[in-house]
């Protein structure tokens, strides 16, 4: 049996530094290309993004999402892949680079990947802490169901200033756990809440001139999904005099919002990439984000402070 090499933050940081040094050197294969020689790479960093994922998660898809985020939120990215089984801990570093269209220089961001067995989670925390970029926000993206199942959520919280979950994912923390995070003062984000931002903004615009008597949130599936629950809680908080209801259309599972009916006057129907409704006798369409993970995370990473509207809605659900 080979002895496991110790993982030290200093060594990881040195490897990162070496990567930057090597990338700053001109590429021999482009020796004749003076623009490439003079171009080099451009470093940018606005935060440390620490993603906890289960080892089974498709790494290519995750890396594509993280690379997409770097355009708006250039970060030092630390991905912690968690697995069951025997004692295991390993780390590697690499850089993610892309050449923006029409530019001479690549933009590069650092990525550190740590693979660990669950029983080494405490070691992971000891390694990740010193790897965070000083003075910049640290955000945890929690996609690991293992951590939630193991009740280890609180072990990783000290690593970040904000934790982002997606209640729509299998194995995500329940509303009660999220409420507990709020009670403990943690900045929390939920992509299920982010997903309804466009619809909330549309409703806020349409309901500007009066308080409706009733609003019905229609969802597909047998049980209201987190988006429908958040929408209900938000409307109840914002419009205490309005009767807010949830109405399922049947089918399996927890469904997303399919439409919203306001009194007898307004009915918003959601379809691919937009919302449609009739107003003043005219059919209207509002464009909405497709809500990819990348789009949703771009929004959440831009908010590293307490979000009172979200917290009010979450507190209402957990009350």
């Amino acid at each position: 049996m080979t002895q496991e090499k110790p993982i030290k933050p200093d060594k990881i940081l040195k490897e990162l530094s070496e990567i930057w040094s090597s990338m700053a050197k001109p590429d021999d294969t482009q020796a004749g290309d003076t623009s490439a020689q003079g171009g080099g790479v451009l470093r940018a960093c606005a935060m440390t993004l620490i993603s906890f994922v289960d080892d089974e998660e498709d790494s290519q898809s995750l890396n594509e999402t993280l690379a997409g985020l770097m355009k708006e939120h250039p970060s030092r990215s630390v991905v912690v892949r968690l697995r069951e089984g025997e004692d295991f801990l390993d780390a590697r570093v690499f850089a993610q680079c892309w050449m923006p269209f029409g530019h001479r220089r690549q933009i590069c961001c650092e990525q550190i990947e740590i693979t660990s067995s669950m029983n080494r989670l405490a070691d992971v925390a000891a390694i990740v802490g010193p790897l965070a970029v000083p003075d910049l926000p640290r955000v945890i993206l929690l996609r690991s169901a293992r951590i939630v199942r193991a009740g280890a959520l609180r072990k990783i919280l000290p690593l970040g200033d904000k934790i982002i979950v997606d209640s729509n994912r299998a194995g995500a923390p329940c509303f009660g756990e999220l409420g507990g995070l709020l009670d403990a003062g943690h900045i929390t984000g939920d992509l299920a809440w982010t997903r309804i931002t466009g619809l909330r903004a549309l409703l806020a615009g349409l309901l500007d001139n009066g308080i409706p008597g009733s609003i019905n949130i229609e969802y597909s599936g047998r049980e209201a999904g987190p988006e429908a629950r958040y929408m209900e809680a938000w409307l109840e908080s914002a419009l205490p005099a309005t009767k807010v209801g949830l109405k399922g259309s049947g089918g399996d599972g927890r469904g997303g919002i399919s439409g919203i009916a306001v009194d007898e006057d307004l009915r918003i129907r959601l379809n691919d990439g937009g919302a449609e409704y009739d107003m003043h006798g005219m059919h209207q369409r509002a464009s909405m984000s497709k809500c990819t993970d990348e789009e949703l995370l771009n929004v959440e990473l831009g908010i590293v402070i307490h979000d009172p509207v979200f917290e009010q809605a979450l507190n209402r659900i957990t009350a």
Partner: protein
Amino acid sequence: MSPETSLQDPLRFHRKSPPCAVVIYGANGDLTKRKLMPALYRLAYEGRLAPGFAVIGISRTAMSNDEFRERMHDSVKKFLEDSPFDEDLWKSFAQGLFYLAGDVADPQSYQALVKTLAEVEDSRKTEDNALFYLSTQPSQYAEIAEGLAAAGLNKGQGWRRIVIEKPFGHDLQSARELQGRLEKCFHENEIYRIDHYLGKETVQNIMAFRFGNGIFEPLWNRTYVDHVQITAAESIGVEGRGAYYQEAGALRDMIQNHLLQVMATVTMEPASSFTSDAVRDERAKLLRAIRIMRPDQVAANAVSGQYGPGRSGSEQVPGFRQEKGVDPESQTNTYAAVTFLVDNWRWAGVPFYIRTGKSLPKRVTEIAIQFRTAPLAMFRKATAGAEALPNVLILRIQPEEGISLNFVSKRPGSGMQLRPVSMDFNYGSSFGERSPSAYETLLLDAIGGDATLYTRQDMVEASWQAVQPILDYWSTQKFDFPNYAAGTWGPQAADEMLARWGHTWRRP
């Protein structure tokens, strides 16, 4: 909590814009097709417009609403930048587009507009808010404003605003005359003078850079700044706009408005708050502090140029006088460079060099703030002059928006060899986020009643006052044009102007 605010989420929702009708005069023109309509569509795409939003296009060409919608559809598809085109969204957006054929000189056209606005208000519920956007010849601004007022369109149940594009007059006197006619029709706070440079993301970023950070402002004064160079260079010539350009020239076209506004943004005092009047008061104060040249000072402090035939890259290009529609004996300046001084405590004695020109070697707009050199050259013996290089902070506006700081650093190895290095922050590529176009920003501001990025009449007059002595002096001169070849950095006299101060132009 009021019903208006209870559903709002300022952290996540975009600023709400009120319902309104935007009435565009010159709706068949280039600006409408290339800039205004793509910007409005993009705002609709982002959900920034109220559901009752409407556009009424006016021009002399006869066409139906549907024909107008069809033309705008093609224009938006063609000129929309960095955004997908959504046909379904267009259908919804296009329901709010209306067209009215009319001549601005015909009083009946304003009566027709009264009727159309009432119909649009009825169908779109615009709350009688109207924004009149004059995308016409500047000579028609006053006439249209008077026509609107005569028809009672300058007042309504909702708000009324009028947007005009530069130039605001062609000299100080005509600017005052224009204002005299406009202010009889609209209040000053209803007149929005657009300077699209101020809507550029990177120009706004100058304020964030200066006033959002604590470390730069203490250096931002005559004690530490040696001089400032503002460059707005175009690599192309007038390219078919010769007839228009011949009447304007570089000083009027760029320096009097865009570049003096940029200079004011770089040099103004911090406003007490980020509100429209507080910011504009500071800009106006700075513009008023620009020293007005005496006629005998103009020759030494302002250089006029015109390009002759030359090479742009590998291509042979004609001179200005060979361009279509240009007088072969034209005295129009296609290049202007001016040394301005600012008479206030912060900037006394610091020269501000502003230059702009057509057919220069590259397209670049930047502000370079050159700091004084270190007071003691302690590494002099071990350097090849690098230590004497001053620190330069460069605010790049286009094409690669960003900020660079040039400083000296020790070369790796034994000994104390210094070399200059550049530390770059590239705004566009450090953040891959799409920046709104200047017109998106400015239209949304006008609809929302925020005039921070719009020019006020006192600013317009202060700018004209700063350049008027130069215009007056140049009008008495016969220049030996052309005095620079296309593809070069302008006339020799511009280099000599800086040399008198012991400075040289940067090569951006």
